[in-house]
């Protein structure tokens, strides 16, 4: 069965390693914070200016001066720090953040990502996404495998305006976990529980390598 949003987040959370600084985008990526394994120590960065971001505040303790990049009220954890926007992107561009998780509209089999603009529709802007994808060495995309019309979002070439070139290393969708290899394209690593390889192949447009054995995710 295809994963729901929380399932995708849960699978991505398995990638988190002890000691990492992590930036989570808006949407599914934000949910990843709910599934951090016990015993590992990580810090979340939000590009509006906090390291050591904590969970939402208790009712009544919201502070307009303490939000995340999605403009949601948050808290800070012991060891947190606040800083300005130039300092925030200084750490992003200088690769101090070990993992970036973000959503996408399309990803191509060479790792290009499109996630900021649909021609003809109201453009909201790229926010910090272009800075993040241009600099991060470790980017995981969290998204549905297909769009609302059923068309694959894993393509040979992105059709939408690009956010960054050749930067995505891993994709976790409702159907599968895939790595991206500069030569082989998408490499199918895991299937969602009960989802067949055939379904994934049918719903993937870009170059796809399917190993002999594709295990189910263990969630």
């Amino acid at each position, binding site marked *: 069965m295809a994963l729901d949003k929380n399932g995708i987040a849960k699978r991505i959370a398995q990638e988190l390693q002890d000691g990492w600084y992590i930036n989570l985008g808006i949407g599914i990526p934000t949910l990843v914070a709910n599934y951090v394994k016990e015993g590992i120590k990580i810090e979340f960065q939000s590009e509006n200016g906090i390291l050591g971001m904590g969970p*939402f505040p208790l009712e009544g303790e919201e502070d307009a001066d303490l*939000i995340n990049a999605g403009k949601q009220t948050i808290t800070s954890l012991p060891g947190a720090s*606040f800083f300005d926007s130039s300092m925030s*992107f200084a750490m992003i561009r200088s690769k101090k953040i070990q993992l970036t998780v973000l959503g996408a509209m399309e990803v191509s089999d060479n790792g290009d990502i499109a996630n900021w603009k649909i021609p003809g529709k109201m453009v909201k802007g790229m926010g910090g996404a272009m800075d993040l994808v241009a600099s991060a060495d470790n980017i995981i995309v969290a998204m549905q495998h297909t769009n609302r019309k059923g068309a694959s979002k894993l393509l040979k070439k992105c059709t939408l305006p690009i956010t960054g070139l050749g930067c995505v290393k891993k994709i976790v969708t409702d159907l599968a976990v895939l790595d991206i290899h500069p030569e082989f394209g998408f490499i199918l690593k895991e299937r969602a529980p009960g989802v067949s390889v055939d379904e994934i192949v049918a719903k993937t447009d870009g170059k796809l390598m399917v190993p002999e054995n594709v295990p189910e995710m263990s969630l």
Partner: protein
Amino acid sequence: MIRKVITNVEDALDGLEDDMTIMFGGFGLSGIPENAIAAIRKRGTKNLTCISNNAGIDGFGLGILLENHQIKKMISSYVGENDEFERQMLSGELEVELIPQGTLAERCRASGSGIPAFFTPAGYGTEVAEGKEVRVFDGKPHILEHAFEASFAFVKAWKGDETGNLIFKGTARNFNPVMAMAGKITVAEVEELLPAGSLDPNSIHIPGVFVHRIFKGEMFEKRIEQRTVIKRN
């Protein structure tokens, strides 16, 4: 330059004219210069080019300048959550330039640092890079970005002193410091305005040298855009 305290918010806008380019601190509605925005609305200055990470919401923040048709162009990184903005943009009434958030911040910081241009990897290969110089450093393509020029920067701080020193609070800091550095005239509104010597010189976020006018904001509504909480059980 050192006598900076303004008692009347109208004086803070002295010299602000139609067609100017001005900066507004804040991220979403957090840390925006509410009092200056309200005063600009009242003053009715038109055809403004506004550099601000976001464009407010309907009825608050820069939204109140938009609905009064005072803004000609927005330079931002993210402009969702605003129906009037969308209407004006789609009708062609409002010009919009979208810039990666880190580049936006760095172009402000460059402006306040006497750095006219710098290379960044952000936006390479995208439409943001169109018409810009590309250069490869260490095997990776970068694009050349330029410092902004802004006649005014309006920022909001938590505490300030008579010499213009500023301290921000939490994530309301965001773009305020780099814009404070960048304004030809920087106007700071603060929640608490204190005598010189009240603030720890070791904890100043923006030294007073960057601030030309400072006043205690009459009212800070500090609206929350996305109230996310954990319910008490």
